[in-house]
């Protein structure tokens, strides 16, 4: 276990290094000048030069990358002042320290992800299990059609519609907003309820279908037949045997989904005006704001590689054939 963790964390660090380097070099591979962008319309060659220096893009690219990398561990001095470790630089656009921006936004994204995950795991796996247990019967047909409809939903459409009906017309749900959990748990819950539900619709649909098909596949396995042949009831077989095999694929996808969501649920955040990592990503792309782009990519990539490790550990826990090494 210990060796597994060390090995995987080193691997994860390697991946993050590669991703950040790629982002860096690709950013500069496209011929355009972020300094001109930051400098604005009325820009003289002299001010452009100053802006360049301020942004730190007057140096060769690999040197810039090196400074950026070292800054994460040691902090960095900019013309505006010192940036403490972990330093991810300042935004090209508004000189906001990147690390602080990420720290400010992350709780919103974390809350959104966590709540939605609870909803879609509960309903998705639950409905998938019921559908599998009632294969071909009405409950299965209802769950399957519902998940087909759910999977074809668009978040911005459902989000706007739901807000209009539930918040504006019926007034049974609060207008979405973010209140820190530590500040007021109840407000946190009510403020995020609608985004959670809307964000989880498509996921619920996918998890229903995935759980159902995975479960159906397991129920057709030889070992399930053996269990029946030794006198186990269909129910016991379902609850004691098949689910363990069925959860493997579900957990794998869940690890990826969780990672992606923690990198920012862009559309959901936009739809409900929540200020999470997703909003930062959009802005970073639109503004060609390299340090911010690196920051959000780092968050997303870290989340993904982290949950990848968690998934592998969970796999080994469920399936004794899988060894951690």
């Amino acid at each position, binding site marked *: 276990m210990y060796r597994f963790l060390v090995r995987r964390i080193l691997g994860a660090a390697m991946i993050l290094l590669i991703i950040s380097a790629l982002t860096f070099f690709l950013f500069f591979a496209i011929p355009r000048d972020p300094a001109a962008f930051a400098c604005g319309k009325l820009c003289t060659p002299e001010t452009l030069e100053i802006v360049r220096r301020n942004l730190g893009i007057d140096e060769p690219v690999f040197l810039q990358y090196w400074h950026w990398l070292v800054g994460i561990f040691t902090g960095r001095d900019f013309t505006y002042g010192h940036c403490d470790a972990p330093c991810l630089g300042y935004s090209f656009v508004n000189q906001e320290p990147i690390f602080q921006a990420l720290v400010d936004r992350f709780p919103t994204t974390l809350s959104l992800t966590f709540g939605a995950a609870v909803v879609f795991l509960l309903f998705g796996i639950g409905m998938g299990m019921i559908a599998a247990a009632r294969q*071909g019967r009405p409950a299965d047909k209802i769950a399957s059609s519902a998940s087909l409809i759910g999977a074809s939903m668009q978040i911005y459409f459902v989000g706007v519609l739901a807000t209009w009906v539930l918040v504006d017309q019926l007034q049974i749900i609060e207008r979405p907003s973010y209140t820190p959990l530590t500040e007021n748990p109840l407000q946190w819950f009510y403020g995020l309820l609608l985004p959670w539900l809307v964000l989880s619709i498509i996921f619920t649909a996918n998890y229903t279908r995935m759980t159902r098909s995975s479960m159906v596949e397991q129920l057709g*396995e*030889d*070992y399930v*037949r*053996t*269990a*029946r*042949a*030794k*006198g*186990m*009831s269909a129910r016991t077989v379902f609850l004691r*045997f098949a689910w*363990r*095999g069925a959860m493997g694929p579900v957990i794998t996808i869940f690890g990826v989904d969780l990672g992606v969501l923690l990198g920012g649920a862009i559309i959901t955040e936009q739809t409900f005006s929540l200020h999470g990592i997703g909003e930062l990503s959009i802005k970073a792309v639109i503004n060609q704001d390299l340090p911010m782009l690196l920051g959000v990519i780092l968050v997303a990539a870290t989340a993904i590689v982290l949950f990848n490790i968690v998934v592998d550990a969970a796999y080994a826990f*469920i*399936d*004794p*054939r899988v060894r951690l090494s």
Partner: protein
Amino acid sequence: MTAPFLSVRDLTVDFSTEDGVVHAVNGLSFDIEKGTTLGIVGESGSGKSVTNLAILGLHDPDFTSISGEIVLDGQELIGASRRELERLRGNKVAMIFQDPLTSLSPFHTVGRQIGETYRKHTGASRAKARQRAIEMLGRVGIPQPQSRVDDHPHQFSGGMRQRVMIAMALVCDPDLLIADEPTTALDVTVQAQILDLLRDLQEQTGTAIIMITHDLGVVTSAAHEVLVMYAGRAVERGTVREVLGSPRHPYTWGLLSSLPRLSAPVDVPLVPVRGTPPSLINVPPGCPFHPRCDYAALAGPGLCGQERPELSPHRGHGDACYLTPAQKRDIFLEKVKEHL
């Protein structure tokens, strides 16, 4: 005359599928006595597994219609309640399957899998069930059962895994053991060991065994009686000596000539029976074997394609073929000579 321990009469199993009704078993009858082994042979797809899953009531009732009689020790199994069947399975009738790797749960220790069968049928405590599992592992020849009991199936070799399956099947001292191709997935030396083990256990416990196989070699070494199946029907039945020593049905001849012969050079390819098994959705009228049979013309013009031959005589060595006894004997002797 007492009733046989297991008596199957006119068993018919039909599956409804999207392509039509599959007539997987069609009017099959056979008996088994305690302490004996019946070998059921036939090409793959001939209905061997379907027959035996029907004995355990393991077909999905929504898609299957079963008729006939399956009487085990006086109890009618067709139409028995779910509870009755669950009490029977693993207890009075147990089954082992072809591939022990996929047939055991990969998620649970072998001790737990053996023990839970025991607990289910005897209500024993966890500790007792574990004790019993260790005892059973020892009986099927697994070294150090005390320590192996907590291992998972993937930690055993193929042969040892099949021993685990056997231990699990025998944990409640069943009266009937159905072994569905128990050695097919194993290599030859291990095959022999498993067959020896089954024979030893049968001597100790007197359980009846149905040995399903497509390998006549297994029948020779493991069975007392043989039932040759083709397209869901019995085409020949008798003792091993009768059926393999003086086979009467052209399909049995085909199976025999597809066996490797000691006298033949090793690189002579095996001759499988010519042609392919018939569709079980549109079963040809008459003798199901006639499209593949070299002797259909000999039996009489058009006869084989019209009416289905019955297995006769009813007792002893029987076969379902229109050829006369003299023709059957002569053709077989002819074949033996050819191959010497």
